């Protein structure tokens, strides 16, 4: 962890110096020719012989837990880099990321993980792309909860603290994309299954609390206390086909997936939890249009095999439906952006289960840039409609230095035991952070 901090700090300093130097002279005072030369100094700074090196993301977050009697602070360090090249119809990407998670208090831990990002070889024709290797595959249209997004690998290392793209990672895949006019066919096969990235077992964000006997989505289960966990990860991840149309007035899509869920489902047996990743058929439909001064988005899916556990601890799979309706608008035609989604999930099971067989939630975000875009205020939330379940995420960000963001945020939870807010209700967190891209 120490090395990661030093490396990140040095890199940040180098770029800060470079940025400050570049703008020592106000461009406003220069004649046109000089402005052009200032601009050209930005060109190809990271490119050698057509190969481009990029620092995709650097992030540091640190903050105290506000109401946890045992755990004191949470720290997150993240860096991701990539090299990209192109020659004729071929292009390649090599990339990796390093994440360090640390928690002080009881229990405390430090964990550093190296992981792949996108590493692929792509061939590009006029209307066709074929990509082989690890890559990001993010299907669907709505924010926060996207039922169609099943291809990507979930990043649950910090639960729901990040936005949807931050909660997704690349997967090993073979992908064919073909375009015909307004239509696109996207076929993906995941030859090797890779499971979701989970938090450290002692992390406050772990969905399993084997000290107090709790599980996210189920609530209190005393049998979990001290239970062992076994992971079952093998075989392929499945695949799917998605047909979309992007055109005048209405965008829509249909998809069919035979897919394994990357996030684990814990099958219970005495003193043992087995993390499994069941296959399911997923049939999806999606729409997107603009009406009445807003953009409207919808996703719906039918799943053949949603996992559940009966109250007699029997594991089974049942059919399920998911529906999300969302909108995005700018009140008063201003700079303030609002997104709202209503999400519904129902598992068709006749036997009482430990899991929530249905839930309804309102999610959304308000984003307001101000001071000529040098500051930004965000308020993100998830609120249960059928049970008390609240997650609030206010955030204030300074964006006055290009490529850098400095932010102060809070994560506040409350709710009943089976819910997200209830499970993390003693893990309210205040975070100070920095993020940059170069």
């Amino acid at each position, binding site marked *: 962890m120490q090395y990661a901090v030093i490396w990140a700090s040095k890199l940040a300093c180098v770029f800060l110096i470079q940025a*400050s130097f570049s*703008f020592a002279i*106000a*461009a*406003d005072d220069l004649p*046109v020719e000089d*402005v*052009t030369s*200032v*601009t050209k100094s*930005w060109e190809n700074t990271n490119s050698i012989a057509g190969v481009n090196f*990029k*620092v995709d993301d650097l992030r540091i977050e640190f903050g105290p837990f506000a109401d946890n009697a045992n755990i004191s602070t949470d720290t997150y360090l993240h860096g991701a880099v990539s090299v990209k090249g*192109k020659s004729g119809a071929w*292009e390649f990407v090599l990339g990796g990321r390093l994440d360090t998670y640390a928690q002080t208090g009881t229990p405390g831990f430090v964990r550093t993980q190296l992981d792949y990002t996108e590493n692929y070889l792509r061939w*590009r024709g*006029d*209307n066709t*792309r074929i990509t082989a290797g690890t890559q*990001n595959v*993010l299907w*669907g*249209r709505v924010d926060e909860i996207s039922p169609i997004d099943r291809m990507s690998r979930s990043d649950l290392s910090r639960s729901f603290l990040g936005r*949807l*793209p931050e909660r997704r990672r690349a997967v090993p895949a073979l992908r064919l994309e073909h*375009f015909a006019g*307004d239509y*696109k066919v996207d076929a993906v096969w995941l030859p090797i299954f890779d499971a979701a990235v989970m938090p450290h077992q002692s992390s406050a964000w772990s969905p399993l609390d084997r000290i107090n006997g709790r599980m996210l989505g189920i609530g209190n289960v005393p049998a979990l206390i001290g239970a062992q966990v076994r992971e079952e990860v093998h075989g392929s991840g499945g695949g799917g086909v998605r047909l979309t149309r*992007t*055109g*005048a*007035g209405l*965008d829509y899509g249909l998809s069919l997936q035979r897919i394994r869920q990357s996030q684990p489902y814990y099958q219970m047996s005495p003193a043992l939890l087995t993390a499994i990743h069941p296959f399911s058929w997923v049939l999806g439909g999606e729409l*997107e*249009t*603009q009406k009445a*001064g*807003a*953009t409207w988005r919808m996703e719906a899916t039918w799943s053949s095999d949603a996992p559940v556990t009966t109250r007699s601890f029997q594991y089974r799979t049942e059919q399920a439906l998911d529906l999300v309706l969302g909108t*995005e*608008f*700018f009140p*008063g*035609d*201003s*700079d303030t952006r609002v997104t709202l989604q209503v999400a519904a999930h129902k598992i068709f099971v006749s036997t009482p289960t430990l899991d929530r067989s249905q839930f309804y939630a309102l999610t959304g975000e308000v984003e307001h*840039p101000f001071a*000529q*875009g*040098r500051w930004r205020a965000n308020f993100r939330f998830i609120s249960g409609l059928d049970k008390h379940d609240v997650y609030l995420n206010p955030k204030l960000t300074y964006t*006055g*230095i*290009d*490529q*850098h*963001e400095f932010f102060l945020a809070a994560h506040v939870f409350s709710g009943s035991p089976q819910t997200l807010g209830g499970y993390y209700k003693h893990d309210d967190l205040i975070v100070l952070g920095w993020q*940059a*891209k*170069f």
Partner: protein
Amino acid sequence: MKHLIPGLIRQMPLRIILLACAGLILVSNQAWADTAGNELAQRIYDRPDGEDASSVVTMILTEKGRNPRVRKMMLYRLDKKQAEVSTLIRFIEPADIEGTGLLTVDGMNADTNQWIYLPALERVRRIDSNRKGGRFVNSDYYFEDLRDRKVSKDQHRIIGHETIAGVTCDVLESIPTEAGNSVYVKRVSWIDPVTLLPLRIDFFEKQENQPSKRLIVNKKEKVQGFWTVMDSTLTDLSNGHETRLTLGRMVYDKHLPARLFTSQVLEDVNAEKEYRP
């Protein structure tokens, strides 16, 4: 149909203005509008600017006492048919917005479709194309400034003649025919009668006698026979914040393919590189 952004491609921010003020087309039954004003607006709107255009544009945001912020983007425009225009903007710097794309397709019946590609999301998202207010990437340009504006949406009249940078300009006043069709209550443009480029535009948002923003053309050039605004500055008169647009390279009539203006290219950051000027 012409867009502000396409306008940028054609003649930089001018076009914005041009279009804005030129938003021409006569409304002959308006008592105060004059024939000469409408004709001038129409001439501005019809000014030759090629079948397509591609350019490299640098946007510099400056605020007194602070370091400037620089954005660099590629702009592409294609006039597919009469009154049908497509534009693609791809940001290439700085790194935190690199790859962001904006595709706008203006149909013949004033219907507009607009999509944005955000690299962080890796998704193409439809956005509300009717948006008028709101700042474009934190600049002093509103989204309305980036849209094409038909001549018929304003009443135009010539209110005088003034000299700017040695050029005697026609001063054209343009007032929306309907209050709700613009964030501005009035625009006044100083038009170079030879090039038909506006050398200055005053934007009035709330009060008809107090401009809120001012666009000044710093440099114009003839590129491939088309007069083009190479450098302009838009100033927020209330706080002095400025948005300067400079054209690096500009190429007209490169025979850009229609495929360039599709979601296929929008979501593929590398796909438009071969068409860069």
